[in-house]
Each structure stands twice: as structure tokens, then as C-alpha cells.
């Protein structure tokens, strides 16, 4: 390899297109890889107003025509979009004349593009599995779900290495697709504490006053209002917390459960204690996380749990349900409080424990912040990822494709 180690990454979302967690993940990973001497080309879907090609901190970002004719359904659209992504990525890689060393795909949403280009250019393919259809749907019930599951299995089969962001996901993916152990590798998801430092010295008193009374503690939830996130557990815990401590519950995010949740709050006559904000802009979110006395992640299924990590980076103590990736991020009584999943009493106990004990609260905060810096730093994650690329290329160099 005479040139700089080069990777072409496929992701169906990249800022400013943000749908879920893959977008910020690929954004920070690619930038940190570039900082560590890796040439990164990101191929992603187009977005109104975003340029078809731009360079962000050394990362070449290409936004492709994501197939805008009406498609029969979401899954069929994904494969049609992949046809376009593959075609445009093929031309980009062709122009680079052999300079791409590895392809790296994120989730099944870019599976066929990644698989196709691997064989056409005969370069190794890596995949990060952020989430599985089995986990999202709690089983496989329809043909669409089975098809997506089989596509995920095919993608992991074609990949040289499968990266997962938590030990929980490593074992889940290994079981779900029957993969050999040495094919899987855990690299945590990262968080960027610097973004919170920028508002460190700002006086947030007047900002806070817009959401809560001075005597009210702020309990923050950030996430979609869907069943798997366990938001209904938090709502059911509200009166139990209020028995012990005065608090305002701020709910950021939207989802199909919203009306149902509002009805529960109304029936409890606690509209003045629970505030549904819907989606908020990035700056408001950062400030809310900074102001929060406690951040709650009550998920029932959680592959990783980036929200908990963001709260820890913002120095807001966390209460999480002891499940999935959350179990690994939080050490009970050290970097947060773990409670029983699907249990409002346990959740209320955890929230009150933090809100009623200032010493305990600051102890948790400091430990959590240190853990974020030590384990979930993008710089370190990029170095680990680069080492995986190098290891794969070492094995590849001995194959007949090289």
C-alpha cells in the first residue's frame, strides 16, 4: 500500500440528514479517522440544501440521488436507493483508481451496495451492525421482517469483520446470525464531551426558568416516544417520585405513543409536572442536558444507549434500566443508577435516590464524566477502528484477491 489507508463508508444518513443514531456515529467516526491519518470517503443519501460533494474536516462526503420516485414500500425503497448508491460509488471508486482499501457499511440499509462493491473491486468489506430487525421488532413476524433479517445475515456473512458497539450487541448478533466468535469485534460508540464544554460557563438560570420553577428538580427524558424506549414506565413513575421530591419531568422527542402518554398524565392530573417538548434543536437539547438534575433512560430494548452517554458527558447523572448496552455503560452506584427494567417503582426509587442526595449525585457525575473520557472518546474509537482496518488488510494481503 503506497498511499494513505483509505476507506469508503456507506451510510443512509449523514448530517444534515439525521434520522437515528447512525448519522452522528458516522459523522464523528469519519472525522476522527481522518484526524488519525485515514482517508475517508462517505457515500450517503442526498438531503435538501446539502451539496452533492463536500469536504468536512478532511472527510470527502458524497450525497447520492436516493431514488425519489414513489417506491412500493420502505424496504423496496432501500434496495432501489442501494442501486443508485452502488452506481455512484462505483464511479467514484473507479476514478480513484484502486485507492480504496476497504469498504465499511453501516446496517442493512446499505447492505447490497456494500456487498456489490466488495466483489466488483475485490476489496474487503466491514460492517457495523448498530441494531437488528429481530431486536427492533422483538422477533420476526412478517415477510418484510424476515427479508430484512436475511439481508442482515447475508451482510454479516459477506463482511470480513462485524463491528458492534456493545458486548451485549456482540453476543446478540453472534446468536442472531450464527457467526463465529473471531469475526466479531466490539468497538464502543462515542460521545463528544467538547460540545458541552462550550456552554460550560454560560449562565443557564434564565434558560432553566423557561422550563421549571427554581424549587423543582429537572428530570429529563430524551428519546422517541415508542414502546421499546420504556417512556410509559417513566410516566407511571412520576407520582411515585413526586411523593418524595418536587420535580419537573421534561420529555424530549416524539413518537406514536404521545397521545396515550398525554392521556395518562391528564388522568393523573399532573399536566403541570410533565412537559412534552417534542423535537428540539441541538442547542436547546445541549442546554437541557446541562440543566438536568437527572437524566432517565428507561428502555426495554437498547442495543447501545447513546442518550445515557450524552447525559454523562453533559455531567447530568443518569438512571438507566439494567438492560442491553445500558448495563455496560453504567456501573451501579459508581457512574449511575441501574434500576429493574419495566418497573416504575424501581425507576422512581432510582430517580429519588439521586435527587435527594447531593453528595451521591456529584460522586456519580464525576465518575461518569471520567468514564466517558476514558472509554467513549472518539479519538480512541477511531484508533481502534483503524487497527481493525489494518488487521483486515494484513489478512487480505495473503488472500488471492490481493
Amino acid at each position: 500500500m503506497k498511499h494513505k489507508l483509505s476507506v469508503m463508508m456507506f451510510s443512509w444518513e449523514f448530517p444534515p440528514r439525521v434520522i437515528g443514531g447512525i448519522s452522528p456515529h458516522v459523522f464523528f467516526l469519519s472525522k476522527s479517522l481522518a484526524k488519525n491519518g485515514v482517508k475517508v470517503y462517505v457515500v450517503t443519501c442526498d438531503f435538501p440544501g446539502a451539496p452533492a460533494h463536500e469536504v468536512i474536516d478532511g472527510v470527502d462526503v458524497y450525497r447520492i440521488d436516493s431514488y425519489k420516485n414513489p417506491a412500493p414500500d420502505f424496504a423496496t425503497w432501500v434496495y432501489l436507493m442501494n442501486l443508485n448508491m452502488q452506481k455512484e460509488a462505483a464511479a467514484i471508486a473507479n476514478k480513484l483508481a484502486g485507492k480504496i482499501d476497504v469498504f465499511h457499511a453501516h446496517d442493512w440499509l446499505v447492505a447490497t451496495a456494500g456487498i456489490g462493491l466488495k466483489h466488483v473491486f475485490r476489496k474487503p468489506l466491514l460492517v457495523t451492525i448498530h441494531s437488528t430487525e429481530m431486536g427492533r421488532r422483538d422477533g420476526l413476524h412478517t415477510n418484510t421482517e424476515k427479508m430484512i433479517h436475511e439481508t442482515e445475515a447475508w451482510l454479516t456473512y459477506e463482511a470480513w469483520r462485524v463491528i458492534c458497539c456493545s458486548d451485549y450487541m456482540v453476543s446478540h448478533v453472534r446468536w442472531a446470525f450464527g457467526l463465529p466468535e473471531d469475526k466479531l469485534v466490539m468497538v464502543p460508540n462515542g460521545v463528544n464531551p467538547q460540545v458541552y464544554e462550550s456552554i460550560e460557563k454560560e449562565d443557564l438560570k434564565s434558560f432553566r426558568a423557561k422550563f421549571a420553577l427554581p424549587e423543582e428538580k429537572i428530570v429529563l427524558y430524551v428519546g422517541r416516544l415508542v414502546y421499546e424506549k420504556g417512556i410509559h414506565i417513566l410516566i407511571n413513575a412520576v407520582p411515585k417520585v413526586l411523593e418524595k421530591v418536587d420535580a419537573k419531568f421534561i420529555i424530549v422527542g416524539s413518537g406514536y405513543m404521545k397521545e396515550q402518554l398525554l392521556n395518562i398524565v391528564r388522568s393523573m392530573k399532573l399536566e403541570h409536572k410533565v412537559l412534552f417538548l417534542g423535537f428540539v434543536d441541538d442547542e436547546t437539547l445541549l442546554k437541557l442536558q446541562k440543566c438536568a438534575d437527572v437524566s432517565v433512560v428507561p428502555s426495554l430494548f437498547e442495543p447501545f444507549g447513546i442518550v445515557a452517554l450524552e447525559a454523562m458527558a453533559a455531567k447530568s447523572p443518569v438512571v438507566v434500566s439494567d438492560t442491553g448496552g445500558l448495563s455496560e455503560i453504567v456501573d451501579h452506584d459508581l457512574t449511575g443508577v441501574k434500576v429493574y427494567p419495566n418497573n416504575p417503582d424501581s425507576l422512581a426509587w432510582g430517580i429519588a435516590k439521586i435527587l435527594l442526595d447531593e453528595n451521591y449525585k456529584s460522586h456519580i457525575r464525576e465518575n461518569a464524566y471520567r468514564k466517558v473520557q476514558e472509554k467513549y472518546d472518539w479519538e480512541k474509537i477511531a484508533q481502534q477502528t483503524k487497527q481493525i482496518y489494518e488487521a483486515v488488510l494484513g489478512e487480505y494481503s495473503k488472500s488471492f484477491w490481493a
Partner: protein
Amino acid sequence: MHVIIFSWEYPPRVVGHLAEYINALSTQLVKNKVETHVVTYHDFLTGAVEEASGVKVVRVANPVRTHIGVLTWDLTLNQEVERAAASIYYQANKQIDLIDVYDWHFIPAAVTLKNALDVPFVYSVESLESHRSPTADTPYNMSIKSIEWLGFYEAKKVSAKSEWMRNEVVRIYNVPKEKIEVISPNTNSWVKDVLDLYKTVAGGLSSQ
């Protein structure tokens, strides 16, 4: 000359008349000293088979077994077609002159191979979605039409079996008439016409 033919049917898998046509054409090509690979679909007879006539056939199956429609089936199967063609390409020391694609099914694979490896392709039209489903304009039909459009746009040449079809391609997809050759299997010059078309397409994209 070395040619790869993409066809979604080939004996023993016979759906319409295309299977027999590809069989006859590939046999004639080999007789005329064209090295010929056929990449086709078969669920149970997968793997390379050396045919008695000298035509090398690669049959691929779909790794994804559950589908919600023809499009998802087709677009996943294309990756296997692409993999098989890339494998032929590398085994032939990258000396593939062109790919001849029959109908829309494997257009996606041909488009990627062209953009990635500079192997040109001929789009051989058997029928069009507008004729197969004349009154339907659902997202499903539109998706197939958009794949047909992509094929006409990316192909170096188009071949049609009649003057009528040539005019239909011009009418429906606005393809320049001179991009389309009429090659009828019912004339004596059939094989010669195909070989002439291949000769104009071979030589890579640089001559475009």
C-alpha cells in the same frame, strides 16, 4: 472477443421464449469464436457448468429467501449476478469486451459493472413494462420503468428485435434512434448482425 450474457432465464429454467433464444445465440457465438459466458438464475442448479456447446454457464441463487415482491427479489439477486460477472472478469485478466443484458432484471448489475470496471453493455430489449402492464402506473411499475430508463441511459447500444420496438423505445424513453440497432433473429444475417453490434461496442468506453 469475450462476452458475458445476462439473462434471467436459460434452460433448463424456461419461463418464456427468451431461454431458448439465449441458448441458440450463445451456441452461435461460440461457433464464431466468441468466448461466451451466460450468467443466469437458478435456485437449485447453482455453480459453474461447462456446456457441451462450449458456452460457460454460471447459475446464481438469491441469498435472501424471503421476499415481499419481484423488486426486492430482483435487486438482491443482482448482487449475485454482479459477483459472478466480476469473478469472470478477474479470471479473464480483466479482458471482457462487453456484457449483453436481456431485459430489465439484471440492468442494475450491468450498470455497476460499467461504472466500476469500464465494461460497456448492450441492453437487448425483449419487452417493456409499458407494454406488459399498459394501464398500471403504481410505484411498483414506476420502479421497473425507472430501471429500464437507467438501462437505456447507461447502455452503450440498445438492440431491438423489430423496427416497431425500436420506435417504441424512442417514443417512451426518448432514446436517440441511432443508439438502437434492429436485429431480427428471423433473418439470415442474424448472427452477423449481433457480431457487428458487439464489434462496435467492444473497445471499452473510451470510444464512446
